[in-house]
């Protein structure tokens, strides 16, 4: 594996994608709203945020349903504090995964389907790169950008959550173990899901917009997780999150194993 080549592809893809507004704007805006504004809104205007049918005001019944380990973790706090912490730390956790998923799939849509549409792919095919390096370079650019955005979003969220909840909780309570696992284990896997789905989608898509829309479907499983928590079907915990990450990594590996055949020169050029 030639690192110089991989880095050249990453550099090229990221420089090119930085010029595409329909990629850059969502990548900047979604984390800002989700991590910058949401914590304040949740604390200052309880009831304003509706997570799958339950607002901050009617979280109490959910709290009663918590499994033992979560109940123990929240035990030192009073009801108001519990509500805020549960909402910001647990209920919002699955939303975090939207970031790496979205970023990686949008960038991969631009760098794979978009590159073919712009007719710049062919020049790349004539370089002394192997098919595998080409695919890895493309995957790496979307993946690195997604993981970096997720990490930046996490840092922002860490600051905002503690600040916004200071009046109620009066202590630094974020991040906990579960969130660290989310950031370092699950988010990279979610980024991998976004791009491996995009490799498959790009084999069929006509161009960037087409791929972008088809790839939007990857967010659906996240909504399922959000809904699952809000209705008390399951709760995020360190253990669950470790398993979730493992599952995602396995799905990534399977999809890439299947998708790499669409990324051979022979297959790519046949669709130029």
């Amino acid at each position, binding site marked *: 594996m030639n690192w*110089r080549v991989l880095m050249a592809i990453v*550099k090229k893809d990221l*420089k090119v994608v930085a010029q595409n507004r329909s990629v850059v704007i969502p990548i900047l805006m979604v984390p800002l709203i989700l991590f910058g504004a949401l914590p304040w809104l949740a604390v200052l205007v309880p009831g304003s945020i509706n997570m799958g049918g339950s607002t901050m005001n009617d979280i109490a019944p959910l709290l009663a349903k918590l499994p033992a380990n979560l109940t123990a973790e929240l035990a030192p706090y009073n009801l108001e504090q519990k509500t805020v912490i549960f909402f910001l730390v647990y209920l919002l956790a699955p939303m975090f995964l939207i970031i790496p998923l979205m970023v990686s799939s949008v960038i991969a849509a631009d760098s794979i389907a978009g590159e073919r549409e712009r007719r*710049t792919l062919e020049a790349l095919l004539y370089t002394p790169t192997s098919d595998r390096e080409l695919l890895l370079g493309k995957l790496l650019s979307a993946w690195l950008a997604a993981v970096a955005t997720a990490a930046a979003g996490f840092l922002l969220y860490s600051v905002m959550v503690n600040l916004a909840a200071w009046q109620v909780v009066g202590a630094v309570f974020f991040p906990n173990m579960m969130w660290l696992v989310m950031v370092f284990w699950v988010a990279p896997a979610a980024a991998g899901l976004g791009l491996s789905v995009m490799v498959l989608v790009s084999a069929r898509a006509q161009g960037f917009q087409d791929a972008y829309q088809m790839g939007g479907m990857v967010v659906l499983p996240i909504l399922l997780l959000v809904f699952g928590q809000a209705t008390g079907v399951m709760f995020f915990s360190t253990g669950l999150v470790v398993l979730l990450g493992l599952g995602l990594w396995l799905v990534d590996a399977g999809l890439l194993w299947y998708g790499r055949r669409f990324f051979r020169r022979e297959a790519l050029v046949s669709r130029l």
Partner: protein
Amino acid sequence: MEAVIQLKNVSRRFGEVQAVRDLTLEVYRGEIFGFLGHNGAGKTTTIRLVNGVLEADQGKIRVLGFDPQTQGPQLRARTGVITETASMDNRLTALDNLTIYADLYGVPRAEVKTRVSGLLAQFELAERANDRVAAFSTGMRQRLAFARALLHQPEILFLDEPTSGLDPMAARQVHSLVTHLAREEKRTVFICTHNLVEAQRLCDRVAVMEHGQLVAVGSPHELASRYVRRLMVNLETDPAQRESALEILAAAGALVDGQPELANGGLRFAAAGREAIPQTLSLLVNKGIRVYHLSAEEPDLEDVYFALHAGKEQ
């Protein structure tokens, strides 16, 4: 002569379309090789096969001793390709386009800067180095494509219709560049073109493709004497003897393909090949015709191309 590209019975189909059929061809080191043929004749497909970007269904290909199918990366490190559409990243600057490709082509790190700035200067793009390619004209984009294809100093350069869409000045620049690359720098140039005048002027040898098949290969001159069955001859005689000269020629069956025309005070007629010239001359002189001028128009690739095509249509 060393063959740097060898194809033996190479075929490739796309579904129902046989893009390349049983192609056997050699290209020698240092020559300018023209690849001619109608739209869809299989020219671009051949470039892709030879560079290991497409796989052949049948046959054997060797380029610089490499098998494109299994040694594509090593091979592509020594070939450069200018694709049919310039395929330049419009969103990047000229400088970025070149430096990124220098990395992809494995140009030694220490040399990247000097090579890139040297090529930008050579192709008169130095002042626009930091502008995005989106703002470039077709000619500038094509010059940048040349700079990019030459970054790694390839031994063989493939040019897929390099002058289509260029103005005459830009096209002439491409011609002198191609000549320079082959004659001074000793690189092999494989050039696909629809422009027969260009091929005639530039190429040492040409191949003519039709529906994926090779129909002729040789130097423009060889092909002309091999395939062109008629030759335009200009004859000037004593004006008073013109009628009798015509009768003599007609009686001897020296006129082919239609009636002679009057041109510049002389006659212009089609004769059957080079041998017709001495025959015509001695015939006329023996019959007492005073011949002031007799010349044959050298057939060119255009005549070859249409002669080959006419043969196919019958």
